[in-house]
């Protein structure tokens, strides 16, 4: 069983707001090796990805901060060595070359390094693009579950992350590496401002705070039914478009935020 209740955890791509949430949730429970393509001190200074998105806290010892380019296998391997678990938050959206290097080749490097180092558990992350503006996306469906095949079409970001997911799956199934893939779509702060009341919410939404806690549950969860499991990591909302049931059943995680005042009169 790959349950990780203590020990060393590597976070890749920790400089963004998901990294900030992840650091906040794990720093008191694990010894973290916090990495990003730029120095964490720089990431901690901002600017924020969006006006209310969290910034990563710059941690002191026993934690470690390190610059890691996920497209460089030697750097990834060195970062993974000695870790009990790895969390891959790296992402690059619009660049026609780097999107492949980070989202696809980066996923390859991380999975390969985890196999080489005997890492117990890898939490991989990516987007669930609910709407991509074409008829084969999942925007017009309801009761969509965690294991539905992603249809990224020709969207560069969605497609390259999809390739990374599939590479990770193939490594997991061939080598028995335990991979939990967390999918996200729309993030927002837990705090709801008075002017937001009744303004509605994206049907696949997660608070930054719930996002961070999800990683704690992901590390602590018991054995998975198969080496590769995908999870919708979002609030259960009354739209009933996207159902995060697996996270509740297998991780024991359920988003605390229901955002009710956003869709109530």
């Amino acid at each position, binding site marked *: 069983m790959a349950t990780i209740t203590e020990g060393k955890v590597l976070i890749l791509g920790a400089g963004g707001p998901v990294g900030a949430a992840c650091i906040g949730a794990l720093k008191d429970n694990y010894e973290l090796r916090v990495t990003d393509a730029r120095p964490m001190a720089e990431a901690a200074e901002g600017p924020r990805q969006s006006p209310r998105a969290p910034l990563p806290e710059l941690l002191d010892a026993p934690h470690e901060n390190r610059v890691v380019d996920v497209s460089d296998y030697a750097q990834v391997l060195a970062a993974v060595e000695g870790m009990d678990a790895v969390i891959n938050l790296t992402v690059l959206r619009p660049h026609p070359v780097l999107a492949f290097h980070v989202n696809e080749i980066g996923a*390859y490097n991380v*999975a390969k390094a985890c196999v080489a180092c005997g890492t117990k558990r890898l939490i991989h992350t990516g987007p669930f693009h609910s709407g991509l503006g074409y008829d084969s996306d999942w925007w017009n469906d309801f009761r969509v579950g965690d294991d539905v095949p992603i*249809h990224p*079409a020709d969207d560069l970001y969605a*497609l390259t992350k999809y390739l990374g997911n599939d*590479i990770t799956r*193939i490594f997991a199934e061939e080598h028995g590496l335990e991979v939990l893939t967390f999918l996200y779509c729309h993030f927002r702060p837990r705090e709801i401002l008075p002017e937001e009341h009744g303004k509605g919410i994206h049907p696949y939404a997660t608070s930054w705070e719930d996002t961070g806690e999800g990683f704690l549950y992901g590390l602590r969860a018991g054995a998975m039914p198969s080496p590769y499991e995908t999870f919708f990591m979002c609030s259960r909302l009354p739209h009933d478009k996207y159902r995060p049931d697996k996270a509740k059943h297998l991780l024991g995680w359920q988003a605390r935020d229901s955002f009710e005042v956003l869709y109530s009169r």
Partner: protein
Amino acid sequence: MNILVTAADSALGAMLCLHLAKGHVVAPIGRSAAADIDGYQCVDPVEVEGVANALRGVDAVVHALPGAANLADVASEQELLDWVSRSTYVLATAACAAGVRRIVLLSSLDLMRSYDERFIVTADWQPRPRANAESLAPHMAELIGREVARTGKVEVVALRLGKIDVEVSAGEVAEAVERALSEPMPANYHWQVQHVASSGRFVR
């Protein structure tokens, strides 16, 4: 038909260029500076502008690179994966923009070899690539081709080739490509996979 052929500087691409030139106008491209093929141009298919220029007036593309590329062509396994994946994306999206009708994407039956040897494996079975770059590269190309085809802007036919001279002859591969360029697609679909092997456990 005006046909762009990628990896024309490989043995597979060169063979296809020679065959297709008998009945079509062929535009061969590749990453090598030069190749002994009529009309060859040095255009790496990851280069957006070069590919867009090469696609002018083209009716169909034979993307031979995913079926031809191997580790000997590149400096690292990461480069192989990137080259095959990104070239397929650049080519497929540029083909959509240029109004190209169809892409024939050459892949490999190696994607299906993990199945029990007793099984007769058709193109409807799930690909099972190995966790290494050489095996993953054609699989990534297939996923990209399928996803771009899902937009309905271009038709993509993936041909998973058996081992040439073992499971299939070079002539049979050329004939399969010729057929894939013109055969009607299954009704309303823009994506199709076919196995190309004249012997063994893999059938179309």
